[in-house]
């Protein structure tokens, strides 16, 4: 009996892990982001676009050389975020925050959102508030 039980378990595991006929298809590729690099931006929220197909965080930061820079950070859509503890009021113009991103590969000031630390210390990820979800954050 034992081998049979093991076989059933293996099959269940295989069915769970394997063989979706198509990937969970992303809205776009991540070819433009440098997924090997993580950058933390500290600055002031200029705008939080609560829009499809992505939310966009626009943040004013001061570069190392003292010059002002505007960065645009792409996040998941309101549809996804609203089901995980976010709202259009999570970020507001004037808020002092730090945002962790994967930057664009080139010199443009943009990136893919990973997390934000609000002024009160709350850390928000796309999967919701703290602590970080196990495994990779879905990033379609």
């Amino acid at each position, binding site marked *: 009996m034992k081998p049979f039980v093991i076989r059933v378990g293996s099959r269940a595991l295989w069915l769970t892990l394997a063989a979706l*006929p*198509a990937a969970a298809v992303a*809205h*776009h590729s991540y070819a433009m982001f440098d997924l090997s690099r993580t950058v933390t931006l500290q600055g002031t929220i200029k705008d939080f676009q609560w829009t499809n197909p*992505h939310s966009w965080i626009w943040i004013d930061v001061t570069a190392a050389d003292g010059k002002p820079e505007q960065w645009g950070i792409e996040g998941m859509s309101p549809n996804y975020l609203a089901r995980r503890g976010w709202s259009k009021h999570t970020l507001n113009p004037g808020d002092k925050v730090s945002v962790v991103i994967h930057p664009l590969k080139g010199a443009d000031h943009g990136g893919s959102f990973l997390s934000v630390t609000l002024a009160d210390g709350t850390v928000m990820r796309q999967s919701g508030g703290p602590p970080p979800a196990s495994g990779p954050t879905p990033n379609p």
Partner: protein
Amino acid sequence: MLQKPVRRIRWVMAVSVFVLGAAAATAVAQSKPDLGGVWEVTMGVRTRPGPGAPEMPALTPEYAQKLADFKAAQAKGEDEESPQANCVPPGMPGIMNQPYPMELLFTPGKVTIVIEAYSQTRRIFLDGRKHPDDPDLTYNGHSIGHWEGDTLVVDSVGFTPDTALGPSQGYRHSDKMHIVERFRLTDPDTLEVVTTVDDPKALTKALSGTKVLKRHRDWDIAEYICEQNNRNLATDKGKAGILLNH
């Protein structure tokens, strides 16, 4: 001759049996599992190539060549991006594997799947009709369904080859792609969908996979207008771009 009270009892019993039988038949007819409501594909299932990867499509030589051409273009920096970056829906089967929920609506003779991603709708006819002999080719195809016990079986044909089979844009399908989906509850709020894709032009053997969806009884489908603020783009060569004007 039976006495009157006995006859009355027999008559009542006969009527009762008839009524109970009819009620039981109705109960059987209505006892299909409740698959209605808002469902989301559970993520965390490994769907990309790599260790523990899903079954990959077994391509015919013609379609293996298409994949090789795609990979060669990618090596030159082309075809990085899919049409979805320009808000073009992926079509079947990819539209059923999105990170956004879908709502199954049951009305007489029809199941309607309202898919949040790209605001898509699938109509599955359960009224006994057949597929058209010469269906127009569409992104989501023509779908008919029936019940096999507690399993809703959906059969779909009529797909435009403009869309990809997946898991990447390099894996194409033909206009002969045929998809069978088997929807079954494994517990009151868990839906298993076993999907089998065959394509005599593109695949040497059928591709099969299972996904698991969770019912969210307190969710509603939300608006998803991809064109609202889409800053991603694919050039005519499929090069990925992003717009940072604000």
